[in-house]
């Protein structure tokens, strides 16, 4: 048939009209944003490396990795929720209960440990706590139909309350061989937590970025109708993402119990950095969607930022200001981009 040539022109009839400047900008914007993010990362890195001599040493980088392990694991959980729920900040996937979840999981770990239970029981307890919180979130979102932002906000308060009840708002110390191994240095003098972060990221990245399951997770979040048309059920994916995120909260609880040698109050303060980091993560991906590797980059970016500030003796109160600014920047940039795409 002679249709072929015609059909190819079918596809580009709209091109002519589209070749105008705003169109070009629209196409370039994602690259600029992404390039800008990576440039900012490099600039921050170089700046600190030059101005703080200790910054660019294996020891310090290992430290940053280790310090980023706990927020990193939490952010990965949030990333999964954002993938499955869509990245609209208000109506999309969001898990505000993650930081509180970590606090409760750590408290459960420490309490079990104090009560004389072994590591295995304490680990199981912490993970079960995380999963349970995730399951409650899943039920609130999928069964009750509450938007994730509000559902997880409510769950966050409940979970924080549980933690207070359990710990009486005190520090519960915990010590065990397992916790010591986690908080010690691993091979090549780099903290074990750094390896945990890299290993955890690698595993989740493999699942999310490279399996059919991961691809479907993206479809469900970004365009539920398309997912349904492809024969997928949306709700199990969304529910699953909250359970996975709860699991991450449990894992982070164990890491935190090790890092702080027990459970301390104030886990909720981790919330803002975690949300910043997750939102920032999207600009580290080519398609401007949440990705696990983008999230790792963004967690490290935030980690290096905080570390650099500390090395330069800049007040730590500035850090949360900078984080707030980053949220504004990233969210407005991606929102503007999306709005332009809609037009």
């Amino acid at each position: 048939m002679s249709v072929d040539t015609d059909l190819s022109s079918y596809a580009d009839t709209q091109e002519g009209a589209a070749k105008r400047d705003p169109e070009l900008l629209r196409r370039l914007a994602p690259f600029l944003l992404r390039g800008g993010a990576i440039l900012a990362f490099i600039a921050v890195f170089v700046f600190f490396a030059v101005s703080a001599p200790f910054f660019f040493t294996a020891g310090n980088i290992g430290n940053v990795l280790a310090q980023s392990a706990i927020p990193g694991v939490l952010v990965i959980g949030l990333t999964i929720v954002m993938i499955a729920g869509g990245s609209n900040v208000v109506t999309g996937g969001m898990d505000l209960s993650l930081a509180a979840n970590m606090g409760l999981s750590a408290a459960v770990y420490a309490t079990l440990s104090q009560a004389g239970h072994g590591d295995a029981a304490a680990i199981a307890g912490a993970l079960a706590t995380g999963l349970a919180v995730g399951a409650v979130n899943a039920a609130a979102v999928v069964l009750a139909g509450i938007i994730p932002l509000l559902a997880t906000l409510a769950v966050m308060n409940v979970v924080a309350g549980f933690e207070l009840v359990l710990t009486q708002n005190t520090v519960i110390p915990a010590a065990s061989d397992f916790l010591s191994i986690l908080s010690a240095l691993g091979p090549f003098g780099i903290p074990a937590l750094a390896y945990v972060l890299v290993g955890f990221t690698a595993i989740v990245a493999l699942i999310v970025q490279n399996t059919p399951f991961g691809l479907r997770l993206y479809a469900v979040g970004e365009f539920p109708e398309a997912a349904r048309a492809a024969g997928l059920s949306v709700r199990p994916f969304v529910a699953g993402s909250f359970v996975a995120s709860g699991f991450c909260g449990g894992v982070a609880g164990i890491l935190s119990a090790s890092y702080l040698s027990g459970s301390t109050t104030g886990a909720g303060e981790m919330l803002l950095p975690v949300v910043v980091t997750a939102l920032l993560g999207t600009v580290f991906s080519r398609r401007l969607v949440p990705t696990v590797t983008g999230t790792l980059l963004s967690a490290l970016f935030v980690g290096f930022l905080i570390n650099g500030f500390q090395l330069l003796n800049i007040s730590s109160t500035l850090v949360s200001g900078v984080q707030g600014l980053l949220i504004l920047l990233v969210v407005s940039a991606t929102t503007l981009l999306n709005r332009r795409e809609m037009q």
Partner: protein
Amino acid sequence: MSDAAGTVVRSGEVIRLEGIVKHFGGSTALSGASLSVRRGTIHGLVGQNGAGKSTLIKLLAGLHRQDAGEIEIEGKPYDRLTPHLVEELGIHFIHQDRLLVPSFTVGEALFLGREPRIPGTPFLDRRLMQRRAAEILGRYFGLRLPNSALIAELSTAEKQIIQITRALLNQPKVLVFDEPTAALVHREAEILFRLIRRLRDEGITVVYISHYLNEIEELCDAVTVLRNGRDVATLEIGETSAAEIGALMVNRDVSELYPKREVAIGGTVLKVEGLSSPGRYEGVTFSLHKGEILGLTGLLGSGAKELVRTLFGLEQSGEGTVEVNGKVVWTASPAAAARNKLALVPEDRRRHGVALDLSVAENATLASLSRFTRFGFLDRTAEILQAENLVDRLQIKTNGSDALVKTLSGGNQQKVAIAKWLSRHSEIYILDEPTVGVDIAAKIEIYTLIGELAARGAGVLVLSSDLDELVGITDRTLVMFRGRIVREFVSSETSADRILAAVAGASETLRHVG
């Protein structure tokens, strides 16, 4: 109809639905509808909104279960269909909305739901997906896209190709197209038709659902007309016409499809002289009179669209003048145009014509808020009064003037878009594709409304690519080709075919009209 592939056997019925009844709660969606589709044909399915088209199709897709009636696929009876069963039977659906994930690559979008894995691992075989995607797109469509191309970067037409390809991957026996041309420009639709014919010639049976009766006439082999939940006729296309199909759909005479009021034509209200915009249109000169309905048509790129946008201040022209009531005006912005008594009812009403999340009353008074404002506050009572008055006059079907516009049907949304300007006492109405995507009954109401605008002494300019519509409701029709007005027709003395020839640039006596 072309019988290019003589080898394809066109016998037997692939789909036979007989006496289908379906109730939803208290209301009856289908009351004994039948549809039988012969193998290897393109079968049209038409009907107004509410006639039961979508219920029948959802039933065929296994999404609803019939209360009574028989279903036979390939001669085998089925008690009930499920989505899974339907897919196994080789029936696939191309939805009106392009259900593709924007951030996916072409390969990912094509294989979502049945992703190939690297053998022996749980991981996606992205390379195979890319290779297969390139292969299929090349073979069927001669389309080459970079492996890294994302759905979001594709044109509407390309997205539709991907959507069709998704179905073709299943080696379908039957393809059901649901309003596939709704978002396509004329030329793209033409090429889609060629593709559909080719699929038919390869032995695929096609069910084609559309609002556009001329498409049905051009493309289909047979057509079934639904009305009030039953099939009122199944016709061979060779033995019928778009007008007859339309008349069957609404149960009216052909002559009632395009209501046209006799209106005395008055003085010039809008005069455009030598309007030029480099690369878009040049030397455009015409005038519009009081009480006159003037049609304007042209292919994509003919400049007709751009001209209309210029008149309303959405685009700027290079040179030329625009006179309203004998006074030269400069429509540099939509606000200036509105001040000069111009009203634009845009094509994409959902985006530009109405505010979907506002109520009918709020929309109706949106363009004339100053009239309802006292000391900076809105006079809600006056607003609502005016809105109710408009709802009444335009026969807008709504649960009340406080209902949100997004809950209305397309035709009623369009009426709200027109109402917005009525309350401003505009004198010149520019309507851009006023009946796109609305059903035939709503069309008739919109035509009546346009006639009423003219009867009230307004000048109406209708930009449309529905040529039957232009012949039916306008007084004169201007045809643009490559940026110039090339023909002027007196609508009552011409036919859609003759306008079409001019639209395509085939008119032998090219002349410029003044």
